[in-house]
């Protein structure tokens, strides 16, 4: 892709902030949905660790 074409692509016909803003927000939400359950699991592991010594 030439730099001219790339520039045009990034411009999105003048709608750049709206199009890229939308895709950016989507990326954030999708990544959050992958990470949030993992953070939750990590906290759970610590909880299980604490009750580990056969109570």
């Amino acid at each position, binding site marked *: 892709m030439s730099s001219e074409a790339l520039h045009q692509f990034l411009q999105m016909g003048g709608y750049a902030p709206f199009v890229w803003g939308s895709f950016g927000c989507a990326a954030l939400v999708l990544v959050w*949905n*992958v990470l949030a*359950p993992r953070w939750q*699991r990590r906290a*759970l592991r610590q909880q299980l660790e604490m009750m580990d010594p056969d109570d």
Partner: protein
Amino acid sequence: MWTWFHRLASPPWFYDFAGRLLPWLGLASLLLIGYGTVGGLLLAPPDYQQGEAFRIIYVHVPAAWLSLQVYLVMALAAAIALIWRIKLAECVVVAAAPIGASFTALALVTGMLWGKPMWGAYWVWDARLTSELVLLFLYLGVIGLHQAFEDARAGARACALLALVGVVNVVIVKYSVEWWNSLHQGPTISKIGKPSISLEMLWPLLGMTLGFMTLFGHALLRRLQNELLQREARSQWVRERWARGDV
């Protein structure tokens, strides 16, 4: 058939089953969302009316669609939880709410970003937008209610009741563009067999929607596993899996 259902609803069996399914769902959603992004941003031609701004459809429509689908899954689980008191169904209600809330928020934000260049305003109080905002509050209500209860089971039952009552709002969101005069455009792809969109534009949209659905499945299964671990932390099956490092 019934024995299969019983097995599926048993926490240890479901925990392992989810663990086997998770990587495949993750891979599928990665490929589908990748295809949808490339197809939507690069391969699809610009719209003859909206130009490049129409590309927002590739994140807005899947998010909006999922915001309703997730609610239906949550409400169905709520009904099962209230009628048969199945523990796994209670967990689905609690686990689905934050995912649904995130998709609803995304649908609202991308809708605002699309509304500004097309309608000239980020927000208008019309039926579609307002009912979608109510949907977000319903999800937040379920999350808040769950956190307000000390006892997990009592909390889940309260959440299930709220989720079930709120299902009427899903119907309102769905038909709002037909029942009321709205700035929001009507459905683009649901006219089965004859969608009002060209195939080059349609395929990435379907890919993206399937990608969002598999990602929802992925997040839901992981949250369900967490919920089961939390509730049954003292049971034998959790200890076994903890001992063999399968947590």
